[in-house]
C-alpha cells in the first residue's frame, strides 16, 4: 500500500477562491514519452485505451491509410495519426504519431472552461475532466491547441484522455504504455523523460543522420506532460498536424481572469449610480411640482 497515493489538485477551472488542500502534498510531475521514430503503428495503445477506459467501440473510417479514423472521438481518446511524408529527395517516409491529450502545463481547456471544477490539473501535471461538473458548452474545445476535447451528443458532456489518472493514482503506468510492444512509449517523471528524449534525439542526430531530430515539448504553453521525439522537430505539422507553436487564445487569459471581474464590478457600479442619483439628485416628476417651501431655521434637515 505504500505506493498508493491520491492525486493532489493544482488548478481547477472557473474556481473562485483557493484550491482545497493546496500545497499539502508535493508530487513529481509525470510525463509520457512517445518516440515516433520507433513507433510501428500497431495500435495496441488504441485498443488498450478503449479497453481500460471501458468505452463502447465506434465504427472506424477507412481513408486509404493506416489511420483508424480522422480524429479522436469522445470514446476514442488515443489515435495513431498516419502520414505518408515525402522527403526532399523524393523518398517516402511513414510518420506515425500517437495523438492524445498533451496534458499541457498551461491548459487552454481549463482556461476556457466556465464550469467550476469541470476541469482540474493535478500537481503531477495530469489535466482531467470531471464530467459531473461539465455543463457541455464545449468552450474547452476552443481553448485546446490540439483539438482533443470531444463532445458526446447523448450525455452532453466532453471527454478526453485522462492519462489514466485512475491508474497513475494507484502507482501504475497508463494503459497505452503497458500495451506498447516496441518500447516507444515510456512513462515516468518529467525530468527523466526529458533526459531520455534528449538522449534519443542526440542518438538520432549522431548515429542515424536525422540532423533535425529533436524533442517536442512546446514552451509556448509551458511545456506538456506528453512529449515526442521527432525525426524532424522543425516540422511537427507533418506528424498529423502537430502545431509547432501551440497557443491558448489571448481572450481566455486576459479577458477571463482580468477584464471579466473588473467589468463585472463596473456593471455593479451602474446599479450604485442609479441608487445614488435617486438619493442625491432625486426623481424627475411630472410638472408642475408644488412650490419649494421656504427654508426656515426649524426646517433644516
Amino acid at each position: 500500500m505504500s505506493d498508493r497515493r491520491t492525486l493532489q489538485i493544482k488548478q481547477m477551472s472557473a474556481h473562485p477562491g483557493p484550491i482545497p488542500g493546496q500545497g499539502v502534498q508535493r508530487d513529481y510531475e509525470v510525463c509520457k514519452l512517445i518516440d515516433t521514430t520507433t513507433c510501428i503503428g500497431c495500435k495496441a495503445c488504441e485498443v488498450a485505451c478503449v479497453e481500460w477506459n471501458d468505452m463502447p467501440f465506434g465504427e472506424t473510417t477507412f481513408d486509404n491509410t493506416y489511420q483508424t479514423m480522422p480524429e479522436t472521438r469522445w470514446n476514442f481518446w488515443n489515435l495513431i495519426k498516419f502520414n505518408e511524408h515525402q522527403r526532399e529527395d523524393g523518398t517516402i517516409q511513414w510518420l506515425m504519431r500517437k495523438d492524445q491529450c498533451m496534458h499541457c502545463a498551461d491548459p487552454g481547456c481549463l482556461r476556457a472552461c466556465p464550469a467550476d471544477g469541470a476541469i482540474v490539473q493535478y500537481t503531477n501535471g495530469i489535466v482531467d475532466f470531471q464530467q459531473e461538473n461539465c455543463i457541455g458548452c464545449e468552450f474547452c474545445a476552443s481553448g485546446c491547441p490540439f483539438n482533443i476535447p470531444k463532445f458526446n451528443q447523448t450525455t452532453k458532456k466532453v471527454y478526453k484522455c485522462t492519462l489514466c489518472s485512475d491508474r497513475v493514482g494507484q502507482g501504475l503506468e497508463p494503459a497505452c504504455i503497458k500495451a506498447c510492444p516496441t518500447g516507444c512509449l515510456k512513462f515516468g517523471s518529467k525530468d527523466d523523460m526529458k533526459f531520455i528524449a534528449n538522449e534519443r534525439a542526440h542518438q538520432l542526430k549522431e548515429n542515424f543522420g536525422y540532423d533535425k531530430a529533436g524533442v517536442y515539448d512546446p514552451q509556448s504553453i509551458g511545456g506538456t506532460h506528453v512529449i515526442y521525439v521527432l525525426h524532424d522537430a522543425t516540422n511537427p505539422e507533418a506528424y498529423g498536424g502537430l502545431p509547432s507553436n501551440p497557443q491558448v487564445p489571448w481572450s481566455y487569459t486576459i479577458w477571463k481572469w482580468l477584464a471579466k471581474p473588473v467589468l463585472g464590478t463596473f456593471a455593479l457600479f451602474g446599479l450604485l449610480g442609479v441608487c445614488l442619483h435617486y438619493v442625491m439628485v432625486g426623481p424627475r416628476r411630472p410638472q408642475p411640482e408644488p412650490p419649494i417651501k421656504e427654508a426656515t431655521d426649524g426646517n433644516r434637515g
Partner: protein
Amino acid sequence: MGTAVERFDEKAHHAFDKIGRNEVYQGELLRHRVYTRFLHWMVALWFFLALFSGFGIYLPWLFRWFTPIFGGGALARSMHPWFGLAFVFFFGLQTLNWIRPMMWTPADTRWMRNIRQVVSGKEKLEPPDTGFFNAGQKIQFWEIVVGCVVYLITGIILWTGAHVFGRITVAVSYVLHDISALIMLGGIFIHIYLSTIGEPGTLEAMTRGAVKESWAWTFHPAWYSNVTGRDPKQAYDEAVRAGRWEDPRS
C-alpha cells in the same frame, strides 16, 4: 419604412387590441397599445432568463449562485441559447413596431448636448421638441438592436462550437458576446430606474398603456401637442395657475 412593415404592425396592433384593453381615463393619454406592451414584456421576460442563465456561465463567482435557478450548469447552458433566441425574436418584432418613432432627428442631437441638465435634474420640463421618444431612449433602443445582432452572430458561433467555426472565432465571439451583455446590463439598470422611481408615472405606460397628461407635457411635449393639439407649455402654465400640483410623494 416600407409599407409592408407598417401593414404588418397595424394588423398585429388590431389583433392584440381585440384581446387586451387600452383603458384611458379622463386626464390621460394612450401611450402604448396592447401589442407594444405584450412585446415589451416578452422581451423583458426572455432578456432576464437569458441574463441570469448567462450570468452563471459568465462569472465563476456567480456560477454556484445562479446556475441552480435553472436546474444546474448543464441545463442553464442548454437553455441559454433558446432564451436568447426568444429575446432576439421578440425584440425583432419590437424593432419593426418602433423603427419609425426611433429614427434620429436634429432635436435628438440637441437633446444629447443638453444631457447634463437632464441628469443633474436642473431641467424640470423637457425641451418642447422632444417627441414620442427622447434621444436617450433612442440610443438605448439602437444599442439593443446592435447588441441583438452581435448576440445572434456570436451566439450561434458559440452554440455550434469550435469544430465548425474554428477555435479562434469562438474565443473572439466569447469576448464580443460578453461585452454586448455588459453594455445591456448597464443599460437595464438605467432603464428600470428611469421607468419606475426615477420618473414617476412612467411604469403605467407599459402596464395599463396610459399616462397622465401632465406626464406627457413634462417628458414628451412634442408628442403631447401632436396628440392633443394643444401647446404643452400653455397646458403647464394653466396647471400652475389653477394650482393643480403633482403629488411629489408619488
